[in-house]
Every structure is written in C-alpha cells, then in structure tokens.
C-alpha cells in the first residue's frame, strides 16, 4: 500500500451527507444498519407511548382514561411493537453494522437481500401499527391465544392485522438470518477462525440459527390461524375436535427461542463493552461462547414452561420445569464471566460501561425471578399476575434494552465519527435506571398481592394502589430519560466530539478502520492471528495468555495459491493485521462494490400490497382485493425477476 499519512483526516468532517435516493437504493450494510436503528428507535417511541397511556390508566383505581377495548389494543401493540419492531430490529441494526466489520468482510453475503429485509420490516411494522389510528389495532395479546383470536371471538379486522403483520415481519427476519449466517460462515478474513470471532458476532450467529429454526414454526401456526379466520378451516376449532393447546404449543416452540433471539445480541454487545472498559480480555471466552450455544440449544426444549397453568400433567410439568432450571446454568456462567472480566481490571465508567454493568445487575434480578416460576407449583401462584410482567421487563428492558443502549453509546463513534456526550449520557443512564426500577420493581409486589395482568382497571382496597402509583410515576420518568437520549443522539451526530478511529482503545477489527468506515470497510483484508487483533498492535501487554497462531491463514493461501484474493483482485488485498486511517474511494482502490438498486424496495412493496389485499377480502370487497393481488403479485414477480437478472456489480476492467 502507498503512503498512509498524506490523505486528509476524514473524521473531522463528520458523517457524509446522503440524499433520499441514497437511502432508498442503498445496499451498504452500514447504511442499512443506520436505517434499522432509526426506524426501531421510532417504534420504541410508539411502544413507549402505548405503555405510558396504560400506566396513566392504571395510576389509580377505576381509571377512566381509555376503554377496555382500547386498553386491549394498547397492551397487545405494546408487546408486539417492543418484541418485533424494537428489540429485534435494534439487534438487526447491530448485526448489519457490526458483523461484516468484526469478521473482516467488505459486505454481507447478499447485499440486495439485506436491503430487502429492511424494507419488508419497515412495511410490516407500518402494516401492524397504522390500524391503531382507526381503532382497529390487534387486541388479542402479543401471544394471540386461540380460540380468543379465532373468528368466533375476534370477528373484527384487528387480529387479521396481527396475523398478517407477523407473517410479513417473519419474511424479513428469515431473509436477514440466511444472509447473516452465510456471512459469518463464509466471509471471515483469513485467520478469523470461529473461536476468534468477537463474542457479539458469536451471539449473533446463534441468534440467526434460532431465527432460521424457530420462525418456520410460527409461520405455520399463523397460516393455520389465517386459514381458520379466512377460509373456515378447523385447526383451532375445539367443536371439530381440535386440540385447544395446539396454538399455545406452536406459539411457544417459536416464542421461547424468540426470547433468546431478543437477549443474546445484548449479551454479545456487553461482551464487547466490558473487556474494552476493563482493559482486559474477556474472562473465559470459550465458555461464554459455549454457554451462548447451549442457551440457544436448550431454548428449544423449555417452551411449555409458559403453559404450566393449562394442565399438561405431572410428567410434562416436571420435564419442562427441569429443563428450565437447567438453562439457568449457562446464563449464570455468562454473568460470572462478565464479573470476572471486570475483576482486577482498571475500569473506566463511561456511559456504555454503566449500561453494561446495569445489564448484569438487572438481568440477574430478572433471571432469579425467572427461576421462581421455573417450578410449576410456584408458577401457579405467579402466572398471569404482574409478577410475570415484572420478570420479563427485568430481562427484556433490564437485559436487552440496557445492553442495546450500551451498544449504542459504544458504537456511536464508529457509526458517525463522533462521540455521544458523556455528561448527557450519564444523566440518561441514571434517570433511565431509576425510572426502570421505579416502574418494574413494585410490580413484583402488586403481582404477589394477586393483581392480574392485562386488566384495564381495578377496584380500590386490594392493596395495589401504592405499587401502581409508583409504577406509573416510574413510567412517566422514562419519557424525559428517553428524550435526553434522543437529544444527545441527534445533536452528537453533528456536534459531538470528533472520535478518531479507535476512541475507546478497543480490541476488535472494526476499530482498525476509519470512523465512519469507508464503503468498502477494509482497503486490505487483515490477517488475524488472535482474538484481539487490535490489542496485538496497541496493547501487547494485555495479550498474555491469549493464544496466537497462524491458523486459518495457511488454509486460505493453499486454496487460492499465492494470490489470496479476499473479494478483490490483488495480492495486496490481504495484509497482516494493520491499522487503516487512509480513506480512498472504492474506485481508486479497484474494489468492486455492489451497485445501489431500488428493486428490493419494490419487491417488498409488492409483498405489502399482496398481504394488504387479505383484510380487504375479509371485508367482502373481493373485486378490490383481486385487483390488489394482481398488482402486488405483478410487482413482486416483475421486480424480483429484474433483480435476479441484473448483475450485482459492474464488470471490472
């Protein structure tokens, strides 16, 4: 490579500006990650507002702010939004932005499919959210138990939007999962062996497998429900002899792995954050990886612990109780590994670090309350009470959301070339931390005193008033905490402190390139010899006891002869581990990049129109529905054909 010092420093100019068409046609994994991040934060506000309205209703006994019908829509949409439109896509934002950077790749395996996943997610999110403005939002709970959600008891359009919306979002998640799993399996830089991958990439890898294997099950469960509602089939019709538990089993065979789909990426993020700010390698890397795999594996064998109250019998209850307790082992192992990572380290309490430590503490509380309902007799006292609500908010907000905030503060400089304001961040952290505990801790007590979930109002004199008041005040405090974050986020993009390539002195590959990274990520693909390639260069003293070898490098050379061509043409495309601060265009470097294209967006729009025709058909407007099917189907087939027959890159000369 030529000189390094001559080019102007990119980071002083901040993030480059893009026009609207750049965003609509982008196939760059970093820009798609940005799209995911912003869209998911928007839906976070939507889901948060839904929660605040519910807490306003429940602040005192006999609240009259909303009707029972509206309340049903609020809790259904709050759950659905936070699971499918907030936490999963926030994780997807990090999958997109980080996975190729962490494994030393120039893009994901299928860049255009990646854009397609995002557009399908956006359209699916709107499809399921917009009905709330017409008082027609889904109202059968985020788990949509039959027979309540069948045509007999939910005649309106509400649940159609849920069934079809989740189906659309499933397409997005599956397409993205095939893409990221292929990327991780097949596009690692020479020497980036599986056991050298950053833990975030490892946890993401496990999550992709969970999506690949769990989503087809909910797809089928949804098809059954859709057929029951639209065509009068009998899958959930008890009068025709159907098993009243079929939906619950199918839903939770998907739904429990889904829980790990939500939490494992956050585990991965804090596994990046903690070593960086402890200035130590992660304690027990291999065990953290193995326990992540074990959590994913066991996650398929515990689903019926959501169903202890339905009367499955002593054998099933015992087996699922035991497997559920078993899953606490790998989770506990992770917690101890994080604590031992901090032990003896020189800690820097940045905002990201505070959020990561909060995850350890809050997730542990949620984990312990989880153990209390792993035992069926104990669970029978807790099921369908606010105790359960407290539990899963401790693991999903105290766990997943805290971890994602840690990730945002940590990776913001890599995304935008500027740091977020640490003082505002600290305020955000403490406000958020206090508000979170004020909201959800009292729910344990309300639940133990017998307050059921999902009730839209309650009478005075049952001992629930104080706890509900505290919960509501906590929820109201979350709004200013988030506004502070949003202000910091938007402001820091333009006016934050310029960060440089590696502001946190971190250890993994993504910190060896400029911030924000150039479109091709790596001008030369780095050759990796250890788990912490950056510390090999900057802090060799931290690398005692971390294994080094040329493993994987020889294999790469053997397969391609002397000229190792990692996505490029020249031998010079691969180089020993190094820091890149020079910024050239892909053209100057002769790196082929995929062309921007709008076709994935149009294919996604075709899918949206196809699915939208079904509620129209449900309203007996068949002519319009057939027209929509024709239009949507034509768009889908036509643009898909155009997409597949257009080469991704220009031929190189």
């Amino acid at each position, binding site marked *: 490579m030529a000189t390094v010092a001559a080019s102007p420093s990119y980071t002083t100019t901040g993030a480059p500006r893009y026009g609207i068409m750049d965003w609509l046609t982008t196939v760059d994994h970093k820009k798609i990650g940005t799209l995911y991040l912003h869209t998911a934060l928007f839906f976070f506000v939507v889901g948060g507002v839904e929660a605040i309205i519910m807490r306003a209703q429940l602040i005192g006994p006999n609240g009259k702010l909303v009707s029972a019908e509206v309340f049903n829509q609020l809790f259904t949409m709050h759950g659905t939004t936070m699971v499918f439109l907030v936490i999963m896509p926030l994780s997807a934002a990090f999958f997109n932005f980080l996975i190729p950077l962490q494994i030393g790749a120039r893009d994901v*395996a*299928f860049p255009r499919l990646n854009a397609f996943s995002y557009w399908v997610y956006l359209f699916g999110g709107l499809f399921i959210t917009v009905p709330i403005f017409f008082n027609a939002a889904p109202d059968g709970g985020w788990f949509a138990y039959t027979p309540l959600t069948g045509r007999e008891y939910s005649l309106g359009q509400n649940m159609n939007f849920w069934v079809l919306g989740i189906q659309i979002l499933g397409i997005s998640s*599956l397409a993205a*999962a*095939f*893409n990221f*799993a*292929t990327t991780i*399996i*097949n*596009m*690692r830089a020479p020497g*980036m062996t599986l056991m050298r991958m950053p833990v975030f990439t490892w946890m993401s890898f496990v999550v992709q497998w969970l999506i*690949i*294997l*769990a*989503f*087809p*099950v909910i*797809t*089928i*469960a949804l*098809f*059954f429900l859709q*057929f029951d509602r639209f*065509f*009068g*089939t*009998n*899958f959930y019709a008890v009068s*025709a*002899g*159907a*098993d009243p538990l*079929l939906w619950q089993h*199918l839903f939770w*065979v998907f739904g429990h792995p889904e829980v790990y789909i939500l939490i494992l990426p956050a585990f991965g993020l804090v596994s990046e954050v903690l070593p960086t700010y402890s200035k130590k390698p992660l304690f027990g890397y291999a065990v953290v990886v193995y326990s992540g795999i074990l959590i994913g594996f066991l996650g398929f064998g515990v689903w019926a612990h959501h169903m202890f109250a339905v009367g499955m019998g002593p054998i099933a209850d015992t087996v699922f109780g035991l497997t559920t307790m078993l899953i606490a082992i790998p989770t506990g192992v992770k917690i101890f590994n994080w604590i031992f990572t901090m032990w003896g380290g020189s800690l820097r309490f940045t905002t990201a670090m505070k959020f990561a430590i909060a995850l350890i503490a809050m997730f542990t509380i949620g984990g312990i309350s989880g153990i209390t309902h792993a035992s069926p007799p104990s669970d029978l006292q807790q099921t369908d009470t606010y105790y359960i609500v407290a539990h899963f908010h401790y693991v999903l907000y105290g766990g997943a959301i805290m971890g994602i905030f840690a990730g945002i503060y940590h990776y913001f400089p890599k995304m935008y070339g500027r740091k977020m304001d640490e003082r505002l961040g600290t305020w955000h952290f403490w406000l958020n931390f206090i508000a979170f505990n004020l909201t959800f801790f009292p729910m344990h007590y309300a639940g133990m005193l017998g307050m059921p979930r999902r009730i839209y109002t309650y009478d005075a004199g049952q001992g629930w008033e104080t706890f509900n008041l505290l919960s509501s005040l906590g929820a109201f405090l979350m709004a200013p905490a988030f506004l502070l974050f949003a202000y910091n986020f938007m402001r820091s993009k333009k006016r934050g402190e310029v960060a440089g390539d590696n502001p946190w002195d971190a250890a993994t590959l993504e910190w060896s390139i400029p911030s924000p990274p150039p479109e091709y990520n790596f001008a030369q693909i780095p050759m990796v010899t250890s788990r912490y390639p950056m510390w090999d260069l900057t802090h060799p003293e931290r690398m005692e006891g971390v294994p080094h070898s040329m493993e994987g490098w020889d294999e*790469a050379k053997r*397969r*391609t002869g002397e000229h*190792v*061509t*990692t*996505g490029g043409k020249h031998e010079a495309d691969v180089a020993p581990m190094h820091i890149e601060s020079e910024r050239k265009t892909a053209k100057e470097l002769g790196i*082929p990049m995929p062309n921007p294209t709008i076709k994935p967006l149009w294919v996604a729009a075709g899918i949206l129109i196809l699915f939208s025709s079904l509620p129209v058909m449900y309203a007996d407007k068949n002519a319009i529905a057939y027209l929509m099917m024709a239009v949507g189907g034509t768009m889908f087939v036509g643009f898909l054909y155009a997409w597949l027959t257009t080469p991704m*890159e220009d*031929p*190189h*000369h």
Partner: protein
Amino acid sequence: MAHTADSHAPQHHYTTTGLDNRKVAIWMFIGSECMLFASLISTYLIYKGKNVVGPLPHEVWTNPQTGQAMKAILNIPITSISTFVLLMSSFSMVMALAAVENRNKPRPANPAFWWKVENSSKLWLFMTCLMGATFLGFQAYEFTSFVHEGLTIRRNLFGSSFFTLTGFHGAHVTAGVIWLGTLLAIDMKRGLQPKDALWVDIAALYWHFVDVVWIAIFTLVYLIQ
C-alpha cells in the same frame, strides 16, 4: 475497455469454507424448511383419529345424512404412481446437473445416440419439469375427487390438516417447476455453461429436498394406517 475472456464471469470470491455463498444459504434455507414441514406433519399426526365426522383417510365411515357406509378416502395405488414419478424426477435432476457441469468435455466425432441423451441438459431439465407437473396433475385430480366425495378443507380436522400439508408440498413443487422452467428457458436461449452449474446445483438441492419431504408425507399420511 479491454475485457479479458472471463471478465463477465461471476467474480471468484475467496470464501472461508471454499463454498459459494449461495450454496451455504440454500442449505440453511432447507434447514428452515425442515422445521416448516415438521410443524405441518406434527399437526397432521396430532389430529389423526380425532375427527368428529368423516370422510376419514383409512377407515370406513358412515355418512350421517344417508346412513350409507363410505369407503376410506385415500387412494394408495394412484398416489404410489405419482410418488414414483416424483422420485424419478430426482434422477433426471441429477442427470441435468451432470450435463451442465460436463458441458465443456470433448465431444466425440460421431456421438452415439445415448451420448447425446446423456449430455442434453435441456432434455433432463424438461423431463424434470414434466414429471413435477405430472405429480401436480395427480394432486389436482386427487384434490378434486376428494371434494366430490365430500372432503373439503372445512369438513373436518383431517380435511384441514391434509389439504394444508399436501397443499404446502404442492406449492413447493410448483415453485420448483417454475424455477427449473426458468433454467430450461435460459438453457434454450443461450445454453447453460459450467459456470452456471451452481444455479442448477442449488435448484437441484431444493428439488431433492421437496422430494424427500414427499417420501415422509407419503409414508406417514398414506402408508401408515
């Protein structure tokens, strides 16, 4: 703009496994599809024998309207024929892929008739499509005759789960026929070359998978009573 001979060929990217990304992705897709069909087949098996009204797959039943004894509805001999046709289509699929991969091997001066047959990817792709379409024809016949005998998707649990399971499989065969038909069209237009073999390869993997699923369905739904 000096093009080298293969400048339009897909770039040979280095990959960690040495496999093409598309091949890795199709295997994961097949893994996902396994869970899809596992859910459908389990539901069918769970609902077996739980019908409150006929028609039934393997049992004689009494029509409540007429009081008439009705025969079991599944026609195993007919379906055995369509199963055989579908299995044979996997053979022609293998031949099609081999023909595309061997396109560049030297052609004998006077190729024998069987040499030409063996190396005609068009013939084998066409045969595969034809046998897939034949299978679908049998399925269409089966579905219509069932409806005539009173078994609709709304009739009972067997109707709902049978039509949905075999219908999903039929939809997969249909997608496969369209996919292979597209490859055949490209072959007719410009001839598939060894560098295109991967496209045929992943289509073939999909096709064999759909075949294997049918073996499971045929055994569990038709043969085991």
